[in-house]
């Protein structure tokens, strides 16, 4: 059996920690192992033993928004899954731009957190509905251009359809739906500020043939214009 993915939870609300732990435990294949729990970033950094593969990170610790710390944290080769209480598009975009792998709003946790952690551990993108919402709401002229298909897939996913239903609606396979949504996410990873975690995401996306190396250059050069 494969080694389980190790996670650290940085969260100052014990009830949330309990919830996350129970989701991890309810995974029948035991693909995730909880390495440690910290109440704040200092607690995470001083934790004994090897660093966890993925950090589940609340964005509000001790009443303080820590979005500004994410870039530094993402630079230490940790994969970050943001797990905050709100889903304002600006914050979502800023957190992803800083190098977080995925953004799971608290009310999306039950459905998505375990899968998002596993995706992050494999440097694969995971797009929640709150991420889709933030991308749809993004009107920055410097942002990447999405194709009509990518936009439509994101919209239907945001509306609450399952990916299979989106596929039926668009007369494409579920796999293609996933591809469209992930491509949109990768276009954002290829633009904006550089981060090691984004490089890892992009490298994996090229390997998985979500995008081609040429497209990465195209998006980055467009963003630098």
């Amino acid at each position: 059996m494969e080694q389980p993915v190790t996670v650290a939870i940085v969260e100052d609300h014990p009830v949330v920690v309990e919830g996350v732990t129970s989701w991890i435990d309810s995974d029948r294949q035991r693909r995730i192992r909880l390495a440690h729990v910290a109440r704040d970033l200092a607690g995470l950094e001083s934790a004994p033993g090897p660093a966890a593969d993925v950090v589940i990170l609340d964005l509000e610790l001790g009443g303080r928004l820590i979005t500004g710390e994410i870039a530094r944290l993402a630079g230490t080769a940790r994969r970050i899954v943001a797990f905050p209480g709100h889903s304002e598009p600006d914050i979502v975009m800023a957190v992803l731009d800083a190098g977080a792998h995925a953004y799971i709003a608290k009310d999306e946790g039950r459905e998505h957190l375990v899968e998002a952690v596993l995706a992050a551990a494999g440097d694969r993108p995971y797009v929640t509905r709150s991420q889709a919402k933030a991308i749809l709401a993004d009107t920055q002229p410097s942002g990447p251009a999405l194709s009509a298909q990518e936009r439509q897939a994101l919209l239907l996913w945001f509306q609450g359809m399952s990916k299979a239903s989106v596929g039926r609606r668009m007369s494409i396979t579920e796999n293609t739906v996933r591809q469209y949504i992930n491509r949109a996410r990768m276009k954002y990873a290829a633009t904006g500020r550089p981060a090691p975690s984004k490089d890892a995401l992009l490298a994996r996306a090229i390997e998985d043939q979500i995008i081609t190396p040429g497209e990465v250059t195209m998006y980055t050069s467009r963003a630098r214009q």
Partner: protein
Amino acid sequence: MLSARYRRALNIAVVIVVAGWQLAGAGSQLAADRADYRSVAFQLAMWLVLAVVIAAGSVRLLRGMSGWPGAWALALVALAAATAAAAACPAGQLLKTDWGWGAAGWVGVLVLLRRPFGELAGFLSLAAATTFAIMARDGLHRASLAGFITILAGSAAIQFAVTVAAGALELVARQAAGAAESEAAVRAQSAIARQVHAARHARWLALQATAAPLLRALAAGTADPGDETVRRSCAMEAARLRRMMAETDDTLVPLMHELHAAADIAERRGVAVDIETAGALPGVPPGIRRIITDAAITILVAARSRARVTMAGTGAGIAVSLVADAPEQPRLPAGHGEVTIEQQHDGDDLWMEARWSSQ
């Protein structure tokens, strides 16, 4: 508004009178007596100074500028030029050849029109006093005194009269404006009352179509509250009533507000409803909102345990969607004109999207 129009008309009239006096009155006197002056060039120069002051004063008046420093600076420049012109008149011929005194008085009317009345009185007195002083320099006698008083009475009377008339007209205009305003207010009020009545009537008619027959049937006992379809109809009508009440609330995004009101009914049944928006939403006209919310209500009523309501801006329009577990698969109202409604069933899952574009 009205009072401003009156004021502007009067200002223009004063400008015409003062400029006309400078050209026709003072100008023609200067031309007629040109042989008597010691220096015509000097008189002409002083006349030009007054003309410039009149031009500046006219601009100030028409732009509504009435600050005292500007007004008095212009008045005193005019008085100085007029006095210099008078002093340069041939001795003993002042009353016959002087054009400056009268012209200065009119400049005073022009620049002090919107100042307190006492300021003009002061200015005209000052002008009369300087003229009198120049006359006294040449020696006073009975004929010149009589002439001075005649001119003083004549010119000052007209100049005062114009200023008093301006004040009176202002008062009348203000009263007229007040009357017009209260009339407009009455008219607006009755228009609002008519609109409110029409909206109430429209809502009453809407209730007559669906809610009233249901209530009648319940009262008569022909509709059984134990029947699932009757209960669903009741929930539907309750949601419509809530929406109707929400329609008259003044909110930033009325569509969202109305959808919240409709969702509330579903939540009372134990359906978990979440409402999300993405992007900037356009304003949606009331008729369109009703078509969209009607479709939403149909699904919210049919939802068994969960429903997700989303609004997404789509360029110039909006896409309102509902996803719910609705095993019964309700019949949705048809789209109408500018609203297209689409739906898809996947097992128990029902997806609906209503799209509207403002273009």
